[in-house]
C-alpha cells in the first residue's frame, strides 16, 4: 500500500532523515518508535507532504507522492493526525469535523459519519457546539482522531496520540486505535509509549537519528534484548 524507499528529508540545510525504507501493507497496523528527535514526526510530515523530501521516493497504491502538496495527498487516502492534536481551537467541535471532510461532496454521508463519531466519542457529541479549545487534552485527541477519519482515509498516521494524557485516557486511546484497525483501516502509529505501541501493532520500525535500526514483528521486538534496554528501560 505505502512504500517508502531511501527517503531523505529535513529542515532547510539540516537533514533529519538519512535514507528511510518503510512499507505498510493493506490492513496492517505498524508502529514507528524511537527517541525524541529521532525523526519520527519528520518522517510523517514528509510522507503527508508538509515537508518536501530531498531524496528517495514515496509510493502509495502505485502513485508517486513525493512533491505532491499535502491537500492532494490527503485526498488520495492518507490522513495525518498531527502531533499535539492541532485541532482548530477557535472553531466548534462540529466545524472541526466538517473541515475534516473538506472536499467530500456526499453531504448525507458526512452527516452519518459525524453521527458515527459522536456515538463513538459521546463527549464530542455533547459538546458539538462548543469551541474545540475548551475541550480537555483527551477530548481534543479524540476530536483530532475523529477529524482525521472524516476523510474516510485508507491509511491513517497517528503522531503521539497518547502524549500528555492521563493513564486512564492513554488506555482508552490505545483501545480506540485497536478498534479502528479492526474495521479494516491501515494504521501507522508513532509513539513514545513503546510498550503499548508494540502491544497493539503487528510490525514495528525503530528509528534512531534518522535511520531505521530495527524492524520486525512487534511481538518479537517487545522481547528483544536491545529494545528492552533502550526503550523499555529494563536491564
Amino acid at each position, binding site marked *: 500500500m505505502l512504500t517508502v524507499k531511501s527517503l531523505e528529508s529535513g529542515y532547510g540545510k539540516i537533514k533529519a532523515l538519512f535514507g528511510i525504507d518503510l512499507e505498510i501493507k493493506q490492513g496492517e497496523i505498524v508502529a514507528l518508535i524511537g527517541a525524541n528527535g529521532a525523526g519520527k514526526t519528520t518522517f510523517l510530515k514528509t510522507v*503527508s*507532504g*508538509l515537508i518536501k523530501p530531498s531524496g528517495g521516493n514515496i509510493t502509495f497504491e502505485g502513485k508517486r507522492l513525493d512533491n505532491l*502538496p*499535502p*491537500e492532494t495527498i*490527503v*485526498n488520495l487516502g492518507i*490522513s*495525518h493526525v*498531527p502531533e499535539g*492534536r*492541532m485541532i*482548530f*481551537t*477557535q*472553531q466548534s467541535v462540529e*466545524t472541526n469535523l*466538517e*473541515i*475534516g471532510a*473538506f*472536499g467530500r461532496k456526499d453531504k448525507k454521508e458526512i452527516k452519518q459519519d459525524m453521527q458515527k463519531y459522536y456515538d463513538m466519542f459521546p463527549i464530542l457529541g455533547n459538546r458539538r457546539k462548543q*469551541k474545540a*479549545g*475548551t475541550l*480537555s*487534552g483527551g477530548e*481534543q485527541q479524540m476530536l483530532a482522531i475523529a*477529524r482525521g477519519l472524516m*476523510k474516510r482515509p485508507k491509511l491513517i498516521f497517528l503522531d503521539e496520540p497518547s502524549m*500528555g494524557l492521563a493513564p486512564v485516557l492513554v488506555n482508552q486511546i490505545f483501545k480506540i486505535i485497536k478498534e479502528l484497525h479492526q474495521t479494516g483501516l491501515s494504521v501507522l502509529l508513532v509513539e513514545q509509549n513503546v510498550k503499548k505501541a508494540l502491544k497493539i501493532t503487528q510490525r514495528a520500525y525503530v528509528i534512531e537519528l534518522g535511520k531505521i535500526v530495527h524492524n520486525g514483528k512487534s511481538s518479537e521486538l517487545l522481547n528483544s534484548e536491545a529494545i528492552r534496554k533502550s526503550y523499555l528501560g529494563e536491564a
Partner: protein
Amino acid sequence: MFFDVLLIGIMVGAIYTLVTIGYSMVYSILKLMNFAHGDVYIFGTFICYTLLSKYSMNPLVAILIAALLGGLLASLVEVVAYRRLRSEQHRMISMITALGAAYVIQNSNELQWGNQVLAFPSILTAKTFQLFGFTIPITQIIILVIAVSLIAVFTLFLKYHPYGKAILCVSEDIPTASLMGIPINKTITMVYFIGGMLGVVGGILYSTSYNAVSLAMGFRGTIIAFTAAVIGGIGSLGGALVGGMLLGICENFIGVYVSSSYRDPITFLLLILILLVKPTGIMGSVDQSKV
C-alpha cells in the same frame, strides 16, 4: 446637528469596515501588513470613476466591474509579490515586497489618473425624507444598507460556507489546514480577492458620498484599514466592524465639533490610548487554549 453627524459617522464607519475586512483577514492568515490594500481599493474606485464619467455606464454594472478588477488586482499582488515568500522565516521580507507592490500600483494609478482630486459622479439620489422631525438624506441610508449587507453576507459566508470555514481554519493553522485537504494557495488568493472587492465597494461608496476621488485616498485607505483593524482587534470580523465604526464616528464628531484639521491627530491619539489600555484591541483576545 448631533444626529446628522452621528448618521454620517455611522455611514463612514460602515464604509471603513468594508475597507478594513480584507486587510484584517489577510493579516490574520499571513501575519502580513498588506501595504498595497489601499492602493488596490483606490485603483478600483478610479476604474469606476472612468466607467461612470467617460462611458456613462449603469452605476451598478460599473461598481461590479470595478470590484471584480480590484479583486483580481489584489489576487495578482498576492500571487506575484507574496506567495513565494510565504514560507520565509522573516516576515520583514514580505513586508518589503508589500511596500514595493503598493508603490507600483500607486504610481501606475498616478500615470493613469494623475494626483489631483477628481470629481466623482453622484450615483445615488440626493433626495431626503423626514423621520421623527429629522431630515435624512436617502444617499446615506442606501450606502449604509449596501455596506451593512455586504458585511453580513461575508460574515454568513465565513460561518456557513465550506470555503468560509476553510478560511477561518487556514487563519488558525496553515499546515494543519492543508492536512485537511484545504487548498492553501487557492484559499489565500480567495481572501485577497474578496478583500479587494469589498475594499473597492467601500472606496466607491466613500467617493460617491463625498463626490471626490484622489490618489491620496489610497494611502489613507491603508492607514484607516490598519488603524481600524488594530483598534477593533486585528483578525476578527467583529473587530473590523467595531474599529471601523469607532473611527468613522470619532472622525466626524471631531471634524464637526473641534476642527477638521485636528481630525486625524485626535483620532490617532485615541488609537494610542485604546491600545495602551487594551493592547489586543477592543474585540481582540489573547490566543488561549493551546494545550
